[in-house]
């Protein structure tokens, strides 16, 4: 949730000739994984070899075989198909949260940073409040008590994420705001909204983009945790977190039923985090304001 962007290690960008640096293998791989996941989210039912909910008790809890590449669960459902279709639940929530926090956080952060005053005060206090509160825990409590599901969790997480985003954006805006190029624009009489959107915001874009990716990764993990606890998606919808908890008892029969969704989760989250850190470094290099 917090953007602790560590300085460049060279992990993410491999050195080449001066000028254009091509992304390293690792980043390309990450992009590939993300694309794959998105494809599954969009076209899951077309790509899956079996129906995600197709039960076949005869082949229940079987280890991976040529027919069922990842084996089956205790209802005889094909694990691979459930993972492919489960990508949708895995991706939609985090995407909504990331975008939601992006919009609200950026607007509030821009206004707070540029104008100061009461909006600024409000944002800072809100961010202070939310900062140390464990978002996931709150989500667990709220979703659990209300009895809502996936989308309640999404709303709760957006509410808990945007203040931090706003504070980060505010900080970045403050840095830019006192720079001569902004003051020159003010002196020329350029409209304030234009200054915020066309002058300041493009200069804080690296931070915003990186933060969005990192938010996505965090939300992915949080929502899967909620599903794991039975508080997320409805029971039969294929979902990685849900599969983890449901198939925990099968771990000695077909370990892959439990491990495969875990791996899918980890790969996606790691890829998103990598892309987030990489995009920050890449975009920061384009001579943005110091």
């Amino acid at each position, binding site marked *: 949730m917090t953007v602790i962007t560590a300085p460049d290690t060279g992990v993410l960008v491999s050195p080449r000739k*001066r000028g254009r640096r091509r992304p390293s293998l690792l980043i390309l791989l990450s992009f590939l994984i993300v694309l794959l996941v998105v494809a599954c989210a969009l076209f899951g039912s077309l790509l899956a070899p079996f129906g995600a909910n197709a039960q076949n008790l005869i082949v229940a809890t079987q280890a991976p075989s040529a027919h069922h590449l990842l084996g089956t669960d205790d209802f005889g459902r094909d694990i691979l198909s459930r993972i492919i279709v489960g990508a949708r639940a895995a991706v939609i929530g985090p995407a909504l949260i990331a975008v939601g926090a992006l919009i609200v956080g950026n607007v509030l952060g821009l206004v707070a940073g540029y104008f100061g005053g009461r909006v600024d005060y409000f944002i800072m206090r809100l961010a202070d409040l939310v900062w140390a509160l464990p978002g996931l825990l709150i989500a667990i409590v709220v979703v659990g008590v209300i009895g809502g599901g996936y989308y309640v969790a999404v709303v709760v997480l957006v509410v808990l994420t945007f203040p931090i985003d706003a504070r980060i954006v505010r900080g970045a805006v403050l840095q830019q705001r006192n720079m*001569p190029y902004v003051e020159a624009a003010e002196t020329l*009489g350029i409209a304030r909204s234009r200054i915020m959107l066309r002058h300041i915001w493009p200069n804080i874009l690296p931070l915003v983009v990186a933060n969005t990716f990192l938010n996505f990764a965090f939300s992915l993990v949080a929502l899967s945790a909620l599903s794991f606890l039975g508080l997320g998606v409805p029971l039969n919808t294929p979902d990685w977190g849900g599969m983890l908890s449901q198939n925990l008892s099968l771990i000695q029969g077909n370990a892959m039923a439990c491990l495969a969704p875990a791996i899918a989760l980890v790969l996606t989250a790691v890829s998103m985090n990598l892309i987030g850190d990489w995009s920050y470094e890449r975009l920061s290099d384009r001579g943005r304001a110091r």
Partner: protein
Amino acid sequence: MTVPPGAAGPAGGAPLLTVRGLRISSRLQGVDRVITTGSDFSLAPGETLGIVGESGSGKSLTARALIGLLPAGVHAEGEVEYRGRDILKLPERQLRQIRGSELAMIFQDPFTMLNPLMRCGAQIVELLRDERGRPLKRARARQEAARRLAEVGIADAAVADAYPFELSGGMRQRVGIAAAIARDPQVLIADEPSTALDVTTQREILARLREVQQTRGMGLILITHDLRVAFALCDRVLVLYAGSVLEVATAGAMEAEPLHPYTLGLLLSDPPVDRRLSHMAAIPGSVPSPDDVATSCAFAPRCEWRAEICTAATPPLAEVAPARWSACVRVDGIEPLMQEARSETMAARLDHEQEVALAQETGQDSAVVVTRDVEKVFGESGQSGRRVTALKGVSIEIGADEAVGLVGESGSGKSTLGRCLVGLETPTAGTIVVNGIDTSQTGRLSAADRRRLRRTVQMVFQDPYSTLNPVRTVGSTLGEALSAADGQIRDVRKAVGELLERVGLPVRYAERKPVALSGGERQRVAVARALAVRPRLIVCDEPVSALDVSVQAQILNLLAEVRREFGVSYLFITHDLAVVRQVAERVYVLCQGEVVEQGATGDVLDNPQDPYTRKLVDSIPSSDETWLAQADEAAQDSTAQAASTPQGA
């Protein structure tokens, strides 16, 4: 291999430090870059050697190489001999022993040089050991700390218990010096020790350095970009440009007659404080990166006397006269030409009457700006009293087609006043009338008035590296400015092109982003942007302070041209008296928010009435022997007068 240019120091004997063929290069991400191409020099005991260079000359990294502290990715070849050992080849452990006890270094920025979480006294004595090699006990440590502080002119022993943030810049620099020499090193390397300080503080720090050096008989290497400072303090001077040593000589000889076109150019582009030049001699172009000029004479691309031979190969540093070293292969041939150029520039001065006449001529028309008793207080009431009064009732006038200077040190309020004129700050009291509009309460102006205001006053800022939006092309920035001036403008591209030409930049620069422009070029774009609305007054807030000297003169000439062509007035804000003399007919001297003196520039600078102005004028480095010697007296005078000044060093 050339014999390194050395002089037997005052005490005679072998040199302390001998540098032969020091080549520094960097390797980052698989790319090799040249930083310096083979420097040779030596330092005798008790001698002060100045290394003068502009940005990109490699002077700071040279200093770091001498002490073995090059950053990661940067390495040095060659030989740095100290007491029979080669610094560049020593293992880290032995280097650590030498640092501080034999070779020491102080850095440029006193605000970041000291550990913010450690008391000053502790930082000074932390490496001292008693006779048995153990750290000092408390009482003894306090004693030593007090002694060292006294040595650098801090009489108040309580400073030892203070944290750095509690002290002023000048004090911190002194603490830094005390800490650096705590273990009595033989050589002290000072990397721009006074650049970050006010000019009045600068004089005291330099005097302190000189005193400490003489008492201890240390060798001192002073790194600086300011020739005047080098001539004031150093015995010998070495000129570094884009990684190559171009000239070495004693300070007096070099000042009297430079034997390299670059040194001459540097001397001539340095504005004099005692006269106004009708036109400043500027070196065209900008400082190249050492890579680009590694195989020829580094200065050739900008030299007006270059010939085939200069670009064929790198000219070696040769002894062209007794104790005079120059890397110019044509020096014998062009010597008379150089002398001619020099005398021409000297002759281009306005004499005193002309200067005063100029001041009276201009500004006769209706005033563009009149401010009366402007006050500005920062800080909200309600917070634990952190109120700062920047301006305490300032009244100035600027007429049409008039250049007015506003001079002061940091904290004087000069920038604040400029910002009030442009509308970036609102005064808490007093009136500002711009072109007939009372702007003191910008909130209450009508939209039409505000628009008129924008078209009357514009600003050029100090830092060329953040004055332009980095993600926008030059053309886009200028286009926006033009549209802000005239919403109906039709051919923006053409107008942008014309603007660029007016400020001496090629039209194709419109497609470039600021990162592809040099500092001087960016500042030209900033001037173009200010011009786009055809203002009557441009407030220039230290527009050349962040530029190299050789580029500075170009921008000053540009400002003069622009004024001639457009009849625009200037409020020229600066701390540099020499620069203000070249630009402004009249000048106001600001001290802590109040105008202490005003008048024709020539009058004020040649004959200052107010003691503060006098102090400012006296603080300008001069190679006169007495300049450093009298620094202490001057300090005592001013502290006696202005007992409440918080910026005392």
